[in-house]
């Protein structure tokens, strides 16, 4: 894991000291809210419905047990004992007091965390595969590249006034677990025929009011040229992006209006003109190797890849067997497994985690996973390196903390944003809708198989509803909540935006509507087809019809 150097530490110390003074002046009435707002936002502090909300960046979703304990302490000392993991691999605390925030930031700095660049027109947290470094289908560990890009982008002078926020995701496996196509800039790590590492560069993805999937600018940018090439991509955006219209300010609108060919031509012209600057930005192998050393795999003890004992335990306990099947994934290293810790127990707010649960996971990470934890963009946690021989014990201990619901990837593993229960931008609630759906569908979720339901409480689409197999968007109609439903979206390597199935429905009709859509899928699916596969084959019509007939 990357650790702060002297420069990082001093920078954070100075920032917190400045911020402490800003808070003091705000509380003394020397700064108005208008003057203070951008200062607090620069440190991740929002004002939501009930209180201030602090968003803390978790770089590429990687946590140490020490960091997780640090977050647990924030939850316990300064909040109501819990936090909320978001779809951007960050964490939010909902009940923060302004007067406490300088102390909270000092505390977070001791575990190398902060809230900088979690708001405003800046580069946001760079996200990646939560199984980075351990996935069996990985080409190379994406985290060193995430950190290299993070350092390049952090407080970049030329790009500190971008037209709008900018989100980057990096994927390095054959499956896309980083949803690169819904990011402003997506990087797919590839190996060419000569065995060299490089990146497919995609731009212009994003959800929100205008959902668009990213398109490829270049198939293969050699690793050495990565920073120079994305500098060219950003420069074209920085120059032509719309600063006059908030709704048109993201790079996706620029790419859409220019067309990908024209945008690509602009980038290539810029890149050609960069000359010596390209050399200055070149990424030497030695620099990559030095960064890779920071993410060296842990010292795995040799473990036999003999699953006999595991199979015996599975045969004896069907519940354990189901958890193994749903909540573990193959690991690069023989005798090990990746474990997904479900933050979706039935009927609880998705992605919420109490202080004691965080401490339990930190403790389990120390004893069973080399002190490492990951955050997934679907709001669960991961223990990335668990010996197979420890899985049974782990399952028992997670279960005791209500963290072993065997539902990863199933209907009750819903993504939902905080919605109108917390968020000041919301038009409708998300969490109660998710709770009702997960309770209702849980009984038959094994029969249904993989199903991604994603819910957003407003058009900003933090819940990624456009790319849900079933997507739900909360709206407000004449003072009442209503929900627009889409089907067939996907954030996998074959990303797709869902199609709208009909007029928005009232809150109390959502469960029945989703039920009918699931029934329609089950009736039409062929062997082995997932929801988006069936949708691709049959189109929107049968789903619309099922709802129309019901009406």
């Amino acid at each position, binding site marked *: 894991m990357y650790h702060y150097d002297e420069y990082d530490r001093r920078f954070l110390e100075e920032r917190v000291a400045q911020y402490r003074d800003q808070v003091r002046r*705000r*509380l*003394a*009435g*020397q700064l*108005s*809210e208008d003057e203070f707002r951008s200062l607090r936002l620069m440190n991740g502090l929002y*004002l*939501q*419905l*009930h*209180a*201030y909300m602090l968003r803390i960046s978790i770089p590429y979703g990687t946590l140490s047990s020490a960091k997780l304990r640090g977050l647990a302490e924030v*939850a*316990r000392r300064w*909040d*109501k*004992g*819990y936090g909320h993991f978001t779809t951007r691999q960050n964490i939010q605390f909902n*009940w*923060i*007091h*302004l*007067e406490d925030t300088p102390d909270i930031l000092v505390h977070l700095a001791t575990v190398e965390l902060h809230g900088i660049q979690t708001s405003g027109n800046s580069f946001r947290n760079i996200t990646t595969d939560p199984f980075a470094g351990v996935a069996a289908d990985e080409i190379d560990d994406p985290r060193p590249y995430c950190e290299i890009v993070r350092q390049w982008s952090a407080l970049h002078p030329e790009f500190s006034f971008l037209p709008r926020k900018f989100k980057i995701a990096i994927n390095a496996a054959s499956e896309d677990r980083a949803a690169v196509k819904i990011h402003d800039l997506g990087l797919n790590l590839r190996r060419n025929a000569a065995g060299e590492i490089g990146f497919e560069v995609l731009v212009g993805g994003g959800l929100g009011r205008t959902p668009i999937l990213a398109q490829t600018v270049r198939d293969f940018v050699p690793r050495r040229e990565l920073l120079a090439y994305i500098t060219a991509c950003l420069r074209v955006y920085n120059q032509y992006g719309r600063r006059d219209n908030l709704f048109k300010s993201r790079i996706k609108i620029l790419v859409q209006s220019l067309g990908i060919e024209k945008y690509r031509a602009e980038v290539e012209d810029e890149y050609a003109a960069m000359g010596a600057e390209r050399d200055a930005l070149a990424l030497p192998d030695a620099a990559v190797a030095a960064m890779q050393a920071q993410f060296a795999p842990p010292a795995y003890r040799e473990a036999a890849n003999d699953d006999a004992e595991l199979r015996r335990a599975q045969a004896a306990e069907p519940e354990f067997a189901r958890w193994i099947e749903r909540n573990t994934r193959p690991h690069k290293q023989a005798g090990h497994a990746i474990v997904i810790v479900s933050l979706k127990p039935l009927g*609880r*707010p998705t992605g*919420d*985690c*109490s*202080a*004691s649960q965080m401490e339990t996971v930190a403790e389990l990470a120390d004893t069973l996973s080399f002190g490492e934890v990951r955050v997934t963009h679907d709001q669960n946690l991961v223990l990335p390196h668990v010996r197979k021989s420890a899985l049974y014990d782990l399952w028992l201990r997670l279960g005791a903390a209500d963290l072993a619901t065997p539902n990863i990837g199933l209907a009750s593993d819903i993504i939902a944003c905080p919605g*109108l*229960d*917390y968020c000041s931008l*919301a038009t409708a*609630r998300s*969490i*109660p809708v998710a*709770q009702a759906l997960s309770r209702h569908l849980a009984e038959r979720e094994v029969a249904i198989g993989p199903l991604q339901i994603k819910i957003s409480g407003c058009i900003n689409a933090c819940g990624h509803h456009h790319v849900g197999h079933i997507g739900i968007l909360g709206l407000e109609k004449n*003072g*009442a*909540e209503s929900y627009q439903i889409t089907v067939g979206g996907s954030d996998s390597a074959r990303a797709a935006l869902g199609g709208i199935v009909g007029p928005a429905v009232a809150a109390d009709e959502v469960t029945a509507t989703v039920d009918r859509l699931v029934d329609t899928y089950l009736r039409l699916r062929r062997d082995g087809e997932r929801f988006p596969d069936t949708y691709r084959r049959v189109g929107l019509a049968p789903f619309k019809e099922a709802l129309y007939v019901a009406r």
Partner: protein
Amino acid sequence: MTDRVLKLVTGNRLHDGTVVYFAGSGAWTPQIDDARLVEDKDGAALLAEAQAGSPPHPAVGPALIEAVRDGRRIVPLMLRERIRAFGPTVAYRGD
């Protein structure tokens, strides 16, 4: 419940963000039932009164909202304001 729509002023308390209501005479309260409730036509004057005073102002973002009286209780009209007044509609899992 009377369905006559009345007005009150709400904001978030500066130092901790708590939802507060203007109670008149420079005072703010977390109890919505103690809010000063006025006729629609007097809303603008109430807001002006709530915004008066020298900084630091105790509430961030003072705004007029609509509410009705239900016996001794005051209930905001919009769901968003009811959630602000009475808390999230879902149980949370802190410890």
